């Protein structure tokens, strides 16, 4: 047993987190910053943070993740990191020539109270930021929220730093896709294109963390939301913020500062959330939903009707980020599966409430936890008490899956031992089919594996 010390009995913990279902803010900020074209993310703190975050993102995307660090030493921790950051900016612009640098703080620079706004202003005043180049920033203290909070803070940093509100309305809709894969961003852009909706999407890591192998390394890959496009987002008709946790912050900022109204939607995972996304986007962009969408949707529904017997009534445990888990839970319920344990390390009371509401009718006994000490240790204990037929979560779930012999599909961040997440979307109707394929594959593989020889069947 890999997790041989996890007892079945759940005891109350007040201070100890074991096997977290979250990580810290800066990694999210780094990922969001990569979604701007020509941007070099910069981590203001010890170089270990930057190293860990680059490693984590690299393992997940299997693509270059470039970022700078202020490389604090003990001295900078005592006297402040201003001189390190000024030097870092000068060096990065000289050596690596990015269009912009996106700085995020760490628990170290936050604790000593470095003022990023002041340092960036000084860098600009001192001529450390070349003409035409930009520096944006956000605060990402690791002891608040989670990696999702960090993503959200950087998205807000992006709009704060780049939006130029002219007051002249532009016939376009902002889409803030939330912390999703480049494949998902590509699919959302595809949906908008098929709808005929004019959109600006940011951040957009499509073409940044899933770059082609051409024999030429590009420090700044072709993808990413363009600075000039983001600049116009203050003049858009509306913002669609996908995922309350990751996207609402920036949408609110655009609303209060540029009078761009927003609507917070679920990330379009599964049938219901995709329906809402498509309708909201069509309404906002004032386009009629073409008939092709009836077919697109119909294919997902068709697969569900064809295969629902295999999933009906199956118990599922899942963990990950709130913006992902909410529509995923809704999708599972649409498939008549039973979510029995749902855990997210990311805080926010609305999460538990929302999952309970969703499950009230079909899975009233669902165990839900999020925030502090809502960890995979707890999830595992719940599973020991109520075994499940399927586990959904990031790669770290494989230890529970092996110990408890549960079919497992990988979804979320990080996925370090499989590929596919960068290339195949799980959002939209097409993404729904991909999710179904994965779930059916896992459940039917198990049925095949466990079938007695006399009951082993060709056609399932």
């Amino acid at each position: 047993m890999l997790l041989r010390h996890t007892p079945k009995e759940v005891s109350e913990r007040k201070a100890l987190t074991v096997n977290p279902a979250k990580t810290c803010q800066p990694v999210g900020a780094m990922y969001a910053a990569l979604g701007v074209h020509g941007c070099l993310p910069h981590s203001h703190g010890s170089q270990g943070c930057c190293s860990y975050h680059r490693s984590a993102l690299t393992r997940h995307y299997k693509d270059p993740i470039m970022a700078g660090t202020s490389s604090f030493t003990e001295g900078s921790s005592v006297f402040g990191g201003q001189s390190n950051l000024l030097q870092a900016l000068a060096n990065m612009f000289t050596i690596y020539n990015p269009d912009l640098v996106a700085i995020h703080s760490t628990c170290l620079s936050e604790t000593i109270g470095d003022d990023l706004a002041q340092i960036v202003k000084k860098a600009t005043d001192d001529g450390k930021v070349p003409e035409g180049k930009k520096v944006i920033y956000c605060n990402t203290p690791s002891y608040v929220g989670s990696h999702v909070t960090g993503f959200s803070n950087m998205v807000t940093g992006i709009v704060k730093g780049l939006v130029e509100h002219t007051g002249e309305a532009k016939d376009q809709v902002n889409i803030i896709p939330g912390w999703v894969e480049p494949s998902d961003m590509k699919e959302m852009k595809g949906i908008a294109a098929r709808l005929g909706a004019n959109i600006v999407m940011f951040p957009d890591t499509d073409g940044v963390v899933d770059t082609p192998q051409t024999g030429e390394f590009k420090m700044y890959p072709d993808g990413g939301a363009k600075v000039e496009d983001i600049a116009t987002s203050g003049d858009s008709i509306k913002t669609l913020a996908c995922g309350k946790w990751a996207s609402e912050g920036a949408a609110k900022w655009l609303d209060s500062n540029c009078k761009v109204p927003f609507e917070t939607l679920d990330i379009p995972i599964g049938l219901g959330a995709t329906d809402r996304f498509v309708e909201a986007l069509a309404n906002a962009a004032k386009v009629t939903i073409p008939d092709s969408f009836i077919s697109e949707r119909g294919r997902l529904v068709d697969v569900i009707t064809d295969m629902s017997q295999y999933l009906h009534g199956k118990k599922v445990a899942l963990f990950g980020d709130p913006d992902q888990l909410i529509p995923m839970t809704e999708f599972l319920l649409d498939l008549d599966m039973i979510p029995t344990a749902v855990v997210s390390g990311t805080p926010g009371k609305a999460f538990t409430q929302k999952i309970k509401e969703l499950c009230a009718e079909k899975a009233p006994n669902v165990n839900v936890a999020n925030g502090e000490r809502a960890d995979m240790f707890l999830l595992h204990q719940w599973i020991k008490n109520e075994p499940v037929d399927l586990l959904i979560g990031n790669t770290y779930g494989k230890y529970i899956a092996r110990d408890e012999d549960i079919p497992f599909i990988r979804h979320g961040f990080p996925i370090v031992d499989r590929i596919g997440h960068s290339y195949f979307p799980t959002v939209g109707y097409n993404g729904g089919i991909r999710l179904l394929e994965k779930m059916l594959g896992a459940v039917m593989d198990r049925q095949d594996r466990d079938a007695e020889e006399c009951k082993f069947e060709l056609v399932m």
Partner: protein
Amino acid sequence: MSNENKLPDPSAIKEEILAKYPPKIARKRAKSMVINDPELDQQIQSNVRTIPGIITQRGCTYAGCKGVVLGPTRDIVNLVHGPIGCSFYAWLTRRNQTDPDEQVEGGDNYMNYAFSTDMQDDNIVFGGEKKLAQAIQEAYDIFKPKAIGVFSTCPVGLIGDDVHAVSREMKEKLGDCNVFGFSCEGYKGVSQSAGHHIANNQLFRHVIGLDDTEPKHKYNVNLLGEYNIGGDGFEIDRIFKKCGINIICTFSGNSTMDKFANSHMADLNLVMCHRSINYMAEMQETKFGIPWFKVNFIGAESTAKAMRKIGEYFEDDELKARIEEVIAEEMPSVKEAVAKAKLKSDGKVAMLFVGGSRAHHYQELFGELGMQTVSAGYEFGHRDDYEGRKVLPTIKVDADSRNIEEIKVEKDETRYSPRASEEKLEALKEKGLEISDYRGMAPDMADQSLIVDDITHWETEKLIDFYKPDIFCAGIKEKYVVQKSGIPLKQLHSYDYGGPYAGFEGAKNFYADIEKILSTSIWKKIKAPWLNKETDPCICAEYVA
């Protein structure tokens, strides 16, 4: 291994690289880039602060302490005191293998767990000591471990939580659990290296020497600086067992607290990764009288050499004969494997930028494959790792090194016993056994090879263009950067999830893996065929009218 063929002179490319830097940075970087002359005693600048914004390979002190040294010990609860990230990122990512069933079926194994106090902002404002004490109590109540290690992260040092005091109190309170702390805040020192030092100190202070049980076997050694990545330690164990040599404790691959506690009973310490663990060797020598020498189990020839050195040390003909038998048994299949791989690898060129000893060790394996290392450097090495221990007295201790505790170690009045007499050690030295010494990487590298400490991304790009290596060795952050330029990268921290690469079986694995990389067809198909045609004169040529 230095080659008779002089390598191309990198002076011009070095100048070109430096020209891009602001003048102050250029002056600093120039001292960290040395065009090697193995005959000269050249000085390289290393273990100095990383320049902000240069895009470094380096990590932090916490990573060196928790991740590298303590991470591979299975029966200690490694509790990270700090915000969640630090514990999360060090969770299973270093792939230290461990065998908890080795001694007792169902032995303690906490390696697959990540423990954290998950500090929140109110802990930063009001202090996190209470939460830490509570977390230790809860870890004890749930897991009943024999030891709990507490690791300080950046904010802990700043707000002044005293992890040592809390650990002491909890140790006393719990009674049967050894609780001790590490002041390994990420900002200390200039790289992971500081963390290794801190880890060594605290293990020495709190664990080493707790168990005086006499070893039952005849030849007792510790293996220091072997972390069982990809099962390297298992392969070395196999060879030692075959030879009849008993490893009391490996620091710290596949290790346990009990093995640490008993390790001072060894006759000899063998140092693999000099950078991470020479402190432990020296402290055990001073306190208990255990001599040490440097070994390298990366490469079949190096493995044979290291085993013979051990035979020499014990001066036992029976042991020496047994070692020769084992080498004779193992070598034929190694030779066969290398001969096959060499068809692809001979004459090829490698670059190595990794770790604090591996960039040296792996040059031997490449040498066996007929491959030359044209450029190499350490991520967190010190001058002695490049230039040899003779430079120790001349290394300037700067403020960043001074922040790392040096513990004062003295002879243990009752337990000090020199395992070998001065005369014996002198005689062994004369035989060429480098007792208490390490000659460093530079003397083993070719004339005009380029040694670069703490290489930056910019330097990496330029040097790849210059050398056009057949293989580049580094870590995960560099992997896809290099590969996108069309050069295969072999990770030498995680081995790209291959291995083991140590010992005889490991060497065979390495040969096969390098052969695989060098004969991977896709590298030749990166360019779309229609792009190739443009440069193909046969296709572009037109008939003259």
